[in-house]
């Protein structure tokens, strides 16, 4: 059982299929997720990688669950921040559910470590990234705060 867990829910007025694609496809993630892209063929067991715009690997793991839509889960180890990389693998799960004109997107990011620095770190990041995803899908423009990779990070 995971012992440290971050959970976040946001409702987005867009078709479920669009939200699903936006979570995976580079043409979307570049715009709302700080210019990053995910390299993956999206099948269970395949490698998953988060690429930072300067070429570094931000995170890496494997696809654990892939049921399009509503459910996508990957194992995720941070690869570029020493203290976080040492913690090993976390698990991030997206779940989608359509409710009226909106989609409920839930994100769970969990670690087997109690007091995980990785979970503390991502819990600061996810609200901004997913708020920006909602803005992108509802208005056509992401939030300025997540358009670019943070300088010096």
């Amino acid at each position, binding site marked *: 059982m995971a012992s440290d867990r971050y959970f976040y829910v946001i409702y987005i007025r867009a078709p479920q299929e669009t939200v699903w694609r936006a979570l995976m496809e580079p043409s979307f993630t570049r715009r709302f997720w700080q210019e990053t892209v995910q390299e993956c063929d999206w099948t269970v067991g395949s490698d998953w990688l988060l690429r930072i715009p300067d070429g570094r690997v931000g995170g890496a793991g494997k696809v654990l669950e892939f049921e399009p839509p509503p459910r996508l889960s990957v194992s995720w180890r941070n690869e570029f921040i020493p203290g976080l990389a040492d913690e090993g693998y976390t698990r991030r799960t997206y779940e989608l559910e359509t409710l009226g004109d909106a989609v409920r997107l839930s994100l769970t990011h969990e670690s087997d470590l109690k007091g995980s620095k990785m979970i503390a770190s991502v819990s600061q990041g996810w609200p901004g990234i997913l708020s920006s995803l909602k803005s992108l899908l509802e208005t056509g423009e992401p939030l300025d*705060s997540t358009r670019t990779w943070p300088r010096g990070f």
Partner: protein
Amino acid sequence: MSKTSRFVYVTFIRAAPQRVWDALTQPEQTRLYWHGVTQVSDWTPGADWKMTFADGRIADAGRVVEIDPPRRLVLEWRNEFMPELKAEGFSRCTIEISEEHDVTRLAVTHEIDVEGSKLIEAVSGGWPMILSSLKSLLETGAPLGEPLNQDA
């Protein structure tokens, strides 16, 4: 071991802090995105505060503990329409608004000195819906539709 139950939600909205503040406190705006509710208060420290449904029932009530427009609002908050939640007594809801990178950061912290609080469990489901609807209203002009945003 603390006995406090707490829910924290953070969202970022493309609108000025004052617009976010107004949307959170002005009755004609809250009822658009917040299940038809209206808040009644004269918004001064110590003033009574209540939230009413469209049909006139009181949803929640308490008083204003701190107010610093458009940055910070602390409410003492008791549920008034569900006996099990009302029995838990007063919770505290802190709303913090700041500007970061040209967007407004809105943080809601809702807490009560009750272990395993049913009130906090209830608001944990409610706040993401309400604040997502608020964000949609401010960024697109239209709140979320039913069933997420219907009169309670």
